[in-house]
């Protein structure tokens, strides 16, 4: 640990204490995030139990390959950001910068896939609400009314995830540039760890969304 180059905040005794506080704080924040998404996972469980057939119907409108590619993109991003912590320890700030930028680009690719999917669903009048239209001929065995619930959940859950992705991408790219132009980049060790944790967490959420919405 490079104690001398870190600037310790007034309330802490040393950088060690500051680092553990930052880590614990972030993990607690992630626990709250689990429960924030949790409300939606509860709703998903209840309605999947009530309308399992409708969920299977609805999921036929999602392309599995695209979901799989999206998962792959996120996992790659996670790897890069985890690697950048190692690189950071070895003071290769240039590589850290490029790792972070690549992560952000992978995230943007992920979002493009997702928004293309939204676009497609909206075109087929599958966005829930007044315009929702469920073609009669496919309605076996449940009518569109409970399929609509599936799409409500789909848009809410992936939408909330996308919001987290946007925040994550801004944080990662912000950090990348801050790091590049900072005079004392070693100060940014805690932010790098914390933002990395956040990125991995958003990743985990998608790992569950993928089987729950695409693989029914």
């Amino acid at each position: 640990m490079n104690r001398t180059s870190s600037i310790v905040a007034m309330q802490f005794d040393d950088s060690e204490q500051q680092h553990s506080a930052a880590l614990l704080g972030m993990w607690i924040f992630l626990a709250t995030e689990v429960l924030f998404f949790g409300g939606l996972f509860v709703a998903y469980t209840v309605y999947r139990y009530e309308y399992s057939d409708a969920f299977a119907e609805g999921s036929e409108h999602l392309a599995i390959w695209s979901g799989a590619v999206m998962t792959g993109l996120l996992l790659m991003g996670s790897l890069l950001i985890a690697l950048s912590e190692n690189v950071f320890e070895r003071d290769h700030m240039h590589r850290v910068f490029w790792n972070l930028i690549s992560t952000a680009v992978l995230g943007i690719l992920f979002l493009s896939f997702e928004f293309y999917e939204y676009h497609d669903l909206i075109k087929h009048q599958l966005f829930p609400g007044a315009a929702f239209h469920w073609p009669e001929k496919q309605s076996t065995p449940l009518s569109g009314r409970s399929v609509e619930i599936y799409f409500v959940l789909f848009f809410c859950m992936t939408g909330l995830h996308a919001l987290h992705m946007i925040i994550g991408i801004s944080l990662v790219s912000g950090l990348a540039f801050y790091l590049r132009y900072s005079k004392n980049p070693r100060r940014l060790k805690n932010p790098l760890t914390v933002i990395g944790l956040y990125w991995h967490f958003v990743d985990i959420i998608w790992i569950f969304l993928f089987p729950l919405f695409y693989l029914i």
Partner: protein
Amino acid sequence: MNTSFRLLPEVASRGGSEIDLLAWALLAVSTLFSVVIAVALIVFVVRYYHTREVNRQSGWLERHHLATEIVWTIVPLLILLIFFGWGAEVYVRGHQPPPETTNIYVVAKQWMWKIGHEQGSREINQLHVPVGQPVRLTMISEDVIHSFYVPAFRNKQDVLPARYTTLWFQPTKTGVFHLFCAEYCGTSHSAMRGTVIVQTPEEYEQWLRSGEELSPEQRGRRHLASFGCLQCHDPLEGNRSGPPLAGLYGSLLPLASGHTVRVDASYIRRAIVEPQAEIHRGYQKMMPSYQTHLTPEQILEITAYLKSIADASGPVPGPAAF
């Protein structure tokens, strides 16, 4: 309705007396505990007030005393478990009506109670029931959540949109009692009040007869005709494009999906508002949804009609009969 000042409400149902007994027991235990705590507080404060010269030599109650802690953890726990068991027993029985009940249908909407009797009388914000007989309400809401509450019966049940809930009670004395909506339902929530009129069976019969309206079954039959249902569903013959209606109620229906469903009020409701959901095996998906055409009351009346012809072709048929 006795509107004079009182400390305890009238009780007018069998279950009500049971709950009163439970309430007295709870009151006794609560009073005992509060008094013990209050007396202990006062005695300690007076006796060990800082100006008093008393022996404060630390006794056994100094900092910890494991046995004491365990005792005052276990004893309240046991008392609580007793009350749990008692309360649960009364509650479960309150959810299981006896087999023979007078059935009444309740539709709640902002801000009134619409009540229909099996024999045909309908009333608003008034409920006539016979004394001594178990009465069972099947309730649904047209809009938001309401709650059917008769304090004199110590009974309450929320009334939900798009789902039936039931409530039963057995009045034990005649009289006029309050009916309240207990779940906040908007502007005139507090005006959603009515009266429950408990009559002797004779008076009740007479009251039923005085209404000149059609019975729910008759009205249900009329709805079937006027909405064109009978063009596809013949009450008896099975040679139309829809399943016959006689003997349907209470039967086990095989579905196209391979499931089996018991035809009850909930199923009939679903079959009307969401006909594509559970199709009778061997029939086509032709029927449109009548959700926007039929009110919850009309659906209840159709259900009443179907129930009245449940035995039209002999005993209620099992799955094999289809």
